[in-house]
C-alpha cells in the first residue's frame, strides 16, 4: 500500500505568503469577504440561500461560454450570474414551487457549462477555476473590479438598508407602508449576483456557500442585531480567508479548501454551542433557524 502525504509542511511558507500573488490573493479575498458579510446577512434573512447557491452554478456556462467567444471569463460569469439573479428576482414570492424550478435550472446550467467547456478547442482550466476558484491567480485588474463592486455594494446597501430589512422581515407590512417590496427584491438579487461573481473567482461555485452564507448564519446565531451580525459575519469570512491562505501556504493545501474548512468549523462550533445552551435552557445564542410552512421563502 502506498502512503500518501496528506499534508506536507512548507519551510518557505513565509516567503510564499509575502509574495506578490499572495498579496493579491489576500487583498482579493479580503474584498470578497467584506462583500459577503454585507450581503450574506440578507441572504439568510430572506431565506435565499438556495437561490445564492443556484446563481453560482448559473454563472458557469457564462464563464466557459466566454472562453468560446473570446470575452473575459469574469464578464461572461457576471452576465449570467446577474442575469439569472434578475430572472429569479422577477419571479416573485412563491418559493416552494420555485425551489424545484431553481434546482432544475441550476442542474441544466451546470451541464451547459460542461458542454461549452468541451467545445473549447484548447484545453483550459477555466472550468476547474470556476468550480473551485482561483484565488492564487487574482490579477490586478480583478482587484480593481472587486474594489469598485464592493464600493457600489456598500453604497447600495447603505441607501436601501432599512427598507430592505423591513421588506425582508415583514414584507406584507412593509408593502402596506409604501416600501417597494418587489423592486427591492430585484435590486437585492442583482447585488447578490455581483457578489456571487466575485466570490466564484475566489473560492469557486461549489464552495462559495461557505464564504457567503455560512458566516452570515453564524453571525445571526451569535446576535440578533442586524448590523452586529453583518460585522461578525464579515469578520468570520475575513479570518477564514487569511488563515486559509496562511495554512494553505504552510501546508501546501489548495487554498479554497482551507478557507472553506475554517468557515465551516467556526459555524459548527457556534451551532453546537447554541444547541447545548438551548438544551440547558439558556439563551446565550439564538436557536437554529428553520424554514417552515409558516416562514415562506421569498427572494
Amino acid at each position, binding site marked *: 500500500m502506498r502512503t500518501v502525504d496528506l499534508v506536507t509542511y512548507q519551510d518557505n511558507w513565509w516567503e510564499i505568503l509575502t509574495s506578490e500573488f499572495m498579496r493579491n490573493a489576500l487583498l482579493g479575498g479580503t474584498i470578497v469577504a467584506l462583500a459577503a458579510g454585507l450581503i450574506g*446577512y440578507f441572504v*439568510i*434573512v*430572506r*431565506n435565499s440561500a438556495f437561490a445564492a447557491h443556484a446563481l453560482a452554478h448559473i454563472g458557469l456556462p457564462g464563464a466557459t461560454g466566454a472562453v468560446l467567444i473570446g470575452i473575459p471569463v469574469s464578464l461572461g460569469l457576471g452576465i449570467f450570474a446577474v442575469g439569472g439573479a434578475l430572472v429569479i428576482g422577477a419571479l416573485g414570492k412563491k418559493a416552494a414551487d420555485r425551489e424545484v424550478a431553481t434546482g432544475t435550472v441550476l442542474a441544466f446550467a451546470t451541464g451547459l457549462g460542461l458542454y461549452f467547456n468541451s467545445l473549447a478547442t484548447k484545453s483550459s482550466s477555466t472550468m476547474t477555476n470556476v468550480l473551485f476558484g482561483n484565488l492564487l491567480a487574482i490579477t490586478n485588474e480583478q482587484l480593481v473590479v472587486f474594489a469598485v463592486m464592493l464600493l457600489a455594494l456598500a453604497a447600495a446597501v*447603505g*441607501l*436601501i*438598508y*432599512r*427598507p430592505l*430589512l*423591513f421588506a*425582508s*422581515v*415583514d*414584507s*406584507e*407590512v*412593509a*408593502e*402596506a*407602508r*409604501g*416600501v417597494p417590496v418587489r423592486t427591492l427584491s430585484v435590486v437585492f438579487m442583482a447585488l447578490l449576483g455581483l457578489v456571487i461573481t466575485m466570490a466564484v473567482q475566489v473560492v469557486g461555485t461549489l464552495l462559495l456557500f461557505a464564504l457567503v452564507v455560512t458566516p452570515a448564519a453564524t453571525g*445571526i446565531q451569535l446576535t*440578533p*442585531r*442586524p448590523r452586529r*451580525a453583518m460585522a461578525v459575519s464579515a469578520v468570520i469570512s475575513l479570518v477564514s480567508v487569511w488563515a486559509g491562505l496562511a495554512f494553505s501556504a504552510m501546508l501546501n493545501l489548495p487554498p479554497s479548501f482551507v478557507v472553506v474548512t475554517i468557515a465551516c468549523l467556526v459555524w459548527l462550533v457556534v451551532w453546537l454551542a447554541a444547541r447545548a445552551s438551548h438544551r440547558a435552557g439558556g*439563551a446565550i445564542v*439564538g*436557536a*437554529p*433557524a428553520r424554514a417552515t410552512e*409558516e*416562514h*415562506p421563502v*421569498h427572494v
Partner: protein
Amino acid sequence: MSTPEPATPAALVFDDVSAVRGGRLVWSEGTFEIPEGSVTAIIGSNGSGKTTMLKVILGLVPTSSGRVEVLGHAPGEGPSSGRDDIGYVPQDYTSTAGDAIRARDAVLLGLTGNRWAFSRITREQRDQVERALAAVDATGFANRRVSQLSGGQRQRVAIAQAIVSRPRLVVLDEPLASLDLRNQREIVDLLGRLNKDLGVTILVVAHDLNPLLSVLDGAVYLLDGHAHHAPLSGVVDEELLSHLYGTRIEVVRTPQGEMFMRSV
C-alpha cells in the same frame, strides 16, 4: 407630535365601491362611512372578500369602480411620504426572519422601515418604540428574538409595530384567529385600550364576532356580494347573521347583559 390635520369626521368613506380580484367581482355597491375613533369589524363568510377590502383600504389593490377615502385622502397616499397614518397588522404574524431579529427591532422598523439612506436613530424614535412596547405590554420580552415568542406575544409585537408611528387608523387581519382564549381576551382588551387612550380608529377583519363584542361599535358586513355597514345593534341580529354565515345563528343574551352568538 402629530402635525395638525383638517378634521374629518369619517375615518373611512366608501362610495359605490366595487372590487375585482382575478377577474372575479368580489363585492360591489359598497357605500358607507366609518367614523373616526370607532372600532369596526369586517365580517363575512370565507371567500367573501374581507381581506380584499383591507387591501383596498391600504391601497394595495385598486377598486374597479367608486371612490374610497381613507383619513381624508386616497388609499395608499399618506400625508407624508411614509403612509404613517395607517398601521397594518397582517394575518398570522410570523416574521419570516423571526430568528434574526429582536422584537424591539421589529417594532423600530415600523417607524424607520420606509426611510431611505442611512440616518441615526434619534432618542425621540427610541422613546416612541419604548412607548409602543409599553402600550402592548411587551417591554418584558422586547429584547428576545421574535422566533422565541409565543403566538400571543408575537401578535402584541405586531400591534406595537403598527402603532409605533402614531397612526390614526389601525387595520388588523384576523388578529385572534390562532390565539387561545386567554390571549384573545388580552388582545381584545388591548385594542379597546388603544381605542380609548390613543383615540385610534380600529378596523378588524374577523371570522368570529364573539370575542370582539365588548369593544365593537359596528361592523362592515359582506353579504351576497355587497358591502354594507351597520352599528352593533343592527349587526347582532339573528336573521342577518344567519344569512351572512349560511347557517342558523342564535343570539343569546345573558342576565348580566352580555351577549354572544352561536350556531344551532
